[in-house]
């Protein structure tokens, strides 16, 4: 049994758990940054910037995730390769689109055709992070946009009365106070993000759901030392437990952050904290 659980294939699955955690660890802050930039742009006084922010939020939120993952990523990859192609091979005369094929010069391939497999995997992983960040960034932008508007007007007026510039008011008064309004929405997004990782396989990154399906599938004695029937149910059960534990831990951590952020805020929960302390 212990031998079975430590075959190279199972090792790949444990490794995939790491991949998923790493993806979440990188994606969450990146998506938040996208969201912050999007929200700031959407409430900007400068019209073109405002349009960019609003369009980003509207377009990305409106496209189904799967469509976004299937088309956008291939398009993004080809766009990178096309730019490199124009820079690196200026005297290439053949068309880039040959019938169904997308052909760029070998030097423009991304990653280069002869680079080792780990480079390809890292590149695929980075594409995945970028795509996740763009998608979830749009949702985060909407949450933050709402949160920024929820900060009581009186707080901003007071800041102005103290002679703060718009920029100072934004960074010193608005931003520190908006998190408490943003957190419930952001925690929702985090939960959805955790569960969205199976979309990774669409991008060629082998995640835990892929390995659970592969390992759980029936195996005939000709092809393995450990033949077994259809064990997918048990593997998916293990995944279920994994995801439940993960989301539970997230909830506990998010609750703590919420309590911390509420401290001293002009909200009902902040008021309750003050009363409890007194």
């Amino acid at each position, binding site marked *: 049994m212990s031998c079975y659980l430590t*075959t*190279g*294939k199972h*090792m*790949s699955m444990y490794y995939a758990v790491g991949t998923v955690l790493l993806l979440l660890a990188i994606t969450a802050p*990146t998506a938040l*940054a*996208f969201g912050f*930039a999007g929200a700031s742009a959407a409430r900007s006084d400068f019209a073109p910037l405002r349009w960019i922010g609003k369009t980003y939020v509207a377009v990305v939120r409106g496209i189904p995730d799967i469509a976004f993952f*299937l088309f956008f990523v*291939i398009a993004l*990859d*080809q766009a*990178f*390769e096309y*730019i*490199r192609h124009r820079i*690196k091979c200026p005297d290439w005369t053949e068309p880039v689109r*040959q*019938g*169904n*094929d*997308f*052909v*760029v010069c*070998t*030097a423009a*391939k*991304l*990653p*280069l*055709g*002869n*680079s080792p*497999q780990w*480079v*390809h995997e890292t*590149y695929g992983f*980075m594409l995945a992070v*970028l795509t996740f*960040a*763009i998608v979830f960034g749009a949702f985060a932008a909407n949450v933050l946009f709402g949160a920024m508007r929820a900060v009581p007007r009186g707080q901003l007026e007071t800041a102005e009365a103290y002679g703060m510039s718009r920029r100072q008011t934004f960074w010193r008064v608005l931003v520190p106070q908006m998190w408490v309004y943003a957190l419930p929405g952001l925690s929702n997004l985090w939960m959805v993000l955790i569960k969205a990782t199976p979309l990774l*396989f*669409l991008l*060629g990154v*082998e995640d835990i759901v892929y390995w659970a*399906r*592969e390992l759980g*599938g*029936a195996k*005939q*004695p*000709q*092809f*393995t030392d*450990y*033949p077994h*029937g*259809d064990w*997918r149910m048990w593997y998916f059960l293990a995944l279920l437990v994994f995801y439940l534990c993960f989301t539970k831990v997230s909830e506990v951590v998010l609750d703590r952050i919420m309590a911390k952020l509420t401290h001293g805020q002009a909200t009902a929960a902040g008021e309750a904290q003050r009363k409890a302390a007194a």
Partner: protein
Amino acid sequence: MKNLILSTAALALLGSMAMAESHSVVRLGTEGAYPPYNFINDAGEVDGFERELGDELCARAELTCEWVTNEWDSIIPNLVSGNYDAIIAGMSITDERKEVIDFSEAYTQPDPSAFLATGEVDFSNAVIAAQSSTIQASYVTGMAGATLLEFATPDETIAAVKAGEADAVLADKAFLEPIAESDSEVSIVGEDVLIGGGIGLGVRQSDTELRDKFTAAIQSMKADGTLNELITKWLPGSATF
């Protein structure tokens, strides 16, 4: 903005690497879920008939090859957009696929497909499971009285039959036989059907150089009988050349 920074960083990183020569590494895309053609072995590596065949072909064509797995559904789009250079995944040569990609010479004879079921099946009114975008799936569409039930992976088609969701599954006989042997619940039923024109390596239409190299290597393996040895070893019951 962030997007721009990330992409320039990626460009700088990869741009600093050495210039590539044409096809110094050939990336072979496979599914890894279709024994005995291709599957992931206990060590987590690609194994099977096509693994041995592909390694031998690369050695003969003096190519350095690398194995990549990809979902069956998106295996052609990813070849066409250049994520790997050849498909070696039990893919039968069909006219429909030839419109999109090119094939090397076939490395198996047209292989019989068979039905696997838990009992007798009334083919005049049956639900038949098949993997999506396969020759078997399009064959079932044309069968009188049959309803097609498509699945993304071969494994799911078998599970559907065992769960009673489908009456039978249509797939390559070489794939079904080991299952029928090791699992007493299911057996091969009805007549074999001959569909497809043999299995070949899929390459981009613009990549005639690679296609010709593989075809030459396949011909040399046919000539000295090594291909037949591989077929007898991995696909007993299949016709040799």
